[in-house]
């Protein structure tokens, strides 16, 4: 029996990774076949983070649990959410998309029509412009996690018809310059999108990681606008008005505009700046001395991530991490670095570089350019501090004495507070 040997083992100083149960005989028959697989009940704790003050709200955002995920694909159930009037339930049989305005032939498409067009599947990140908002806090939040630092971003394989094909089908009239896509959510959400970008790479997407879009990501049809801020990638898309002026809609004027340090307010800051976040080891995790693989995610709205660097001395020196293939444009990239932790306190920084030569600023650099009361496009380096006992905490240093914080990119509802 196991008793004797285990009794012996229990005497050892360091607890070995076995107990009676390790040697228990295997169980009998497991579950039979099932039509749609669910997660193990032991994984039920892997969920999106919803800020306690947003649990009952219909306009808000929640975060993908970045440090609990591997690779680059965000599982559909964990893709971050952001909406302005709740998630509508749309019957795909009744779904219609209308393209009208400055076109030769206003057209209405059924979902079946859209699927008959030539299709494209590509992996693209989508990031809320409000991602990183917790970085505005001073002093920095000691309980920050990778999720709460950068989890308003996700990455999926999107399938759809190039918007360019639909526009050609309708025949865009000379003089048209703008598209006003509209959602079928309660807010009838609209934004302005230059025709040029649409002709380049915008998708009218109906699938996400192989299956139909999830309701929170716009079922049955959404825009995917590679590299640009999430809020322009209109979900539950019901029509596109082709016109010659931008709408200057509420969410491109009163929201999603950027208050710079010099007092200017920038409109149409569409491209998402390079980002990286170390997901392991990261805030609120605990590690032991010895070997670890530092792991993280990087992306840039300017195209391909070319390099990710890690610093162990708060930016004095940098070492290049490995990027795991395939490294795709406008998509999450997984970076890794083998590392031996000697048990001494250390601060980890990471920064991404993209094909246009952009990289991430330090916090000081970021705030020199962007105002402290801005709400969007925070992409400063995130630091993690490993304490001697192995606990990992926010390693960002306070900036001066003044306390400030993110008061929300959700119309007065803070994302996370």
């Amino acid at each position, binding site marked *: 029996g196991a008793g004797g040997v285990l009794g012996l083992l229990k005497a050892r100083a360091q607890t070995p990774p076995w107990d009676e149960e390790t040697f228990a005989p295997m169980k009998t028959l497991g579950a039979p076949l099932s039509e749609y697989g669910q997660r193990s009940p032991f994984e039920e704790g892997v969920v999106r983070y919803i800020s306690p003050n947003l649990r009952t709200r*219909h306009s808000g955002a929640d975060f993908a649990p970045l440090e609990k995920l591997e690779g680059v694909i965000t599982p559909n159930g964990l893709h971050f959410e952001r909406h*302005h*009037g709740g998630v509508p339930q749309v019957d795909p049989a009744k779904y*219609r998309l*209308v*393209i*009208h305005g400055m076109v030769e*032939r*206003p*057209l*209405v*498409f059924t979902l079946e*029509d859209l699927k*008959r*067009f030539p299709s494209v599947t590509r992996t693209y990140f989508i990031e809320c412009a409000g991602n990183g908002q917790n970085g505005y806090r001073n002093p920095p939040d000691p309980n920050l996690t990778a999720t709460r630092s950068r989890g308003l971003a996700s990455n999926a394989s999107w399938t759809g018809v190039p918007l360019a*094909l*639909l526009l*050609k*089908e*309708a025949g865009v009239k000379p003089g048209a*310059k703008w598209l*006003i896509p*509209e959602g079928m959510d*309660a*807010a*009838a959400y*609209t934004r302005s999108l*230059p025709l040029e970008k649409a002709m380049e790479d915008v998708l009218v997407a109906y699938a996400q990681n192989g299956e139909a879009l999830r309701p929170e990501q716009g079922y049955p049809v959404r825009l995917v606008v590679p590299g640009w801020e999430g809020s322009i990638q209109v979900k539950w898309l019901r*029509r596109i008005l082709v*016109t010659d*002026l*931008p*709408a*200057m*809609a*509420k969410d491109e*004027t*009163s929201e999603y*505009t*950027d*208050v710079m340090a010099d*007092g*200017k*307010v*920038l*409109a*149409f*800051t*569409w*491209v998402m700046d390079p980002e990286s976040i170390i997901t392991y080891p990261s805030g609120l995790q605990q590690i032991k001395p010895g070997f670890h693989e530092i792991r993280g995610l990087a992306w840039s709205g300017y195209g391909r991530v070319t390099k990710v660097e890690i610093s162990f001395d708060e930016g004095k020196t940098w070492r290049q991490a490995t990027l795991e293939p395939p490294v795709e444009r406008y998509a999450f990239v997984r970076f890794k670095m083998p590392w031996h932790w000697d048990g001494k306190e250390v601060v980890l920084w990471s920064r991404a570089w993209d094909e246009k030569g952009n990289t991430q600023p330090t916090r000081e650099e970021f705030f020199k350019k962007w*105002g402290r*009361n*801005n*709400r969007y496009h925070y992409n400063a380096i995130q630091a993690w501090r490993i304490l001697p006992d192995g606990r990992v905490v926010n390693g960002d240093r306070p900036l001066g004495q003044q306390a400030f914080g993110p*008061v*929300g*990119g959700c*119309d*007065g*509802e803070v994302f996370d507070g």
Partner: protein
Amino acid sequence: LALLGLAVGARYNLGTPISEELAAQYDLRPVVLPDGRGLPPGEGRVDEGERIYAEKCASCHGARGEGYPFNRLVAEPFPITPATEPAEFAIGNYWQYATTLYDYIRRAMPFGAEGTLTNEEVYHLVAFLLYMNGIIDAHEPINQKTLPQVKMPARELLQLDPETKRRFPWLTLP
């Protein structure tokens, strides 16, 4: 094999043409452009707006638009500075186009009962909110013609993102 003869640039003949008339019917909450296109006939008055506001909006935005539980709608008619807390951003100090107000209220308010306001009611509410923010006088009528003319104080702060300017040299802000 003639089966595959799809000339480049040819149409796919998918989708169904829809008449302008039907498209207009589908256009449930028309987009209002900064030049006033999309605005319906009708006119708004501040006093009438005050009445509708008290009934349909005050519970979420405060009796005088000061906010709570939801967004503050009223601010001094001076643009924000980098020191202004985002919670203070509101129509008077941050909104750059008066037309946005019409578009947004018709489109998305009152929260939870969107699409229930008449075009006329929206005009009244816009007039009232512009008045409360110190942008217009109590007697100024708000309509198709006047609304696009209303100058918003924060407009002077607004500039195009430099990267956007670089990529789309033709692009200017209305």
